[in-house]
């Protein structure tokens, strides 16, 4: 049985391409395409779907406004051309985030996340979307998406988030094995970074929210491979 889905997208060529991808997958049945949130809400309040392909910036309300107003929560795949929305995407616990235009292979990767059985999905997300670190005599939860990078300080490491820094007894080598490898990548013997937080890369350095982080020659190729370079 196919998953039912709706596409909320104001760019016609992007919507057509999504329809094509859905048809090719043979896993999804497109129930409708809407170019703004109001039209989509009218449909979604009367009809339930399994999957929502959702653009963020559209005329009038945004895709996030739609999620705020939905009475139920289908699996959501955001489709946008702005990487800056990745943070909100995780806040809304969306299944995936596709940056337009995306390849069919990338679309399939998103579908793979949809087809994970619900129970497994829950286990997986709780197991991989955050970590606990020992800090100041307590265990502190850090969401992966809040962590910008991790820096070695000898026998200690510093976790740098948007607004705080946490120092804990650990090593980069040990953490490399334990952090979510989809989100984090080692770029230097002293640094693990959140791949989704890179602002720009220049020669042998990358920048995250004003922090300059060295990228060693040994890791540069791996870092570049993980970026969505178009």
């Amino acid at each position: 049985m196919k998953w039912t889905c709706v596409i909320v997208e104001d760019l016609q060529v992007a919507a057509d391409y999504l329809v094509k991808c859905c048809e090719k997958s043979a896993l999804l049945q497109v129930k409708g395409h809407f170019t703004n949130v109001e039209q989509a809400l009218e449909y979604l309040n009367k009809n339930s779907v399994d999957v929502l392909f959702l653009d963020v910036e559209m005329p009038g309300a945004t895709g996030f406004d739609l999620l705020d107003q939905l009475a139920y929560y289908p699996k959501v795949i955001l489709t946008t051309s702005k990487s800056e929305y990745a943070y909100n995407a995780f806040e809304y616990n969306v299944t995936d985030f596709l940056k337009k235009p995306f390849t069919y292979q990338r679309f399939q990767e998103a579908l793979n996340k949809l087809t994970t059985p619900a129970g497994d999905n829950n286990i997986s997300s709780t197991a991989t979307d955050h970590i606990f670190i020992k800090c100041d005599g307590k265990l502190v939860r850090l969401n992966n998406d809040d962590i910008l990078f991790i820096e070695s300080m000898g026998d200690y490491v510093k976790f740098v988030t948007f607004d705080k820094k946490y120092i804990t007894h650990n090593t980069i080598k040990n953490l490399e094995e334990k952090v979510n490898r989809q989100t984090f990548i080692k770029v230097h013997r002293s640094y693990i970074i959140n791949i989704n937080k890179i602002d720009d890369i220049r020669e042998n350095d990358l920048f995250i929210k004003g922090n300059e982080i060295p990228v060693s020659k040994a890791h540069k190729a791996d870092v570049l491979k993980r970026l969505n370079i178009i």
Partner: protein
Amino acid sequence: MSGSNFSKKFIFNEKIDSEYLYSLYEDDYQYIEEIYQTTLTHFDEDFNAIQRAYETNNISDLKKAIHKMKPTFGFVGLTLVQHICKVFEDFCQKATSSNELTSEYQQIVVTLAESKELIASEYNKLKEFNSNFL
């Protein structure tokens, strides 16, 4: 995307990133033609929205309009133009009035107009190419 196999390979204009197009659509030239056609159909509407927002000094709408149009160029392989739109979008984020964007706006209007001509020309070439293989 249907994986049509033509013995002859279409030669895209050098400004179009053909490898990128193939990564999206493989060698499904019929579908690439459709993509170009859809892009052309909606081009003026999106372009006019940019011009209208600029002329009425509506920076919020200008940001939205350029943001909407930006990925269009990726879909037709004009990755450089997509990047130029991104740069202009970044300028818009910082601007408080159209007057601050005069020079950047004039440049992007020329780029977009030239892009439309190129897309139209490639569309006609693709149409002819595909009709020869039907």
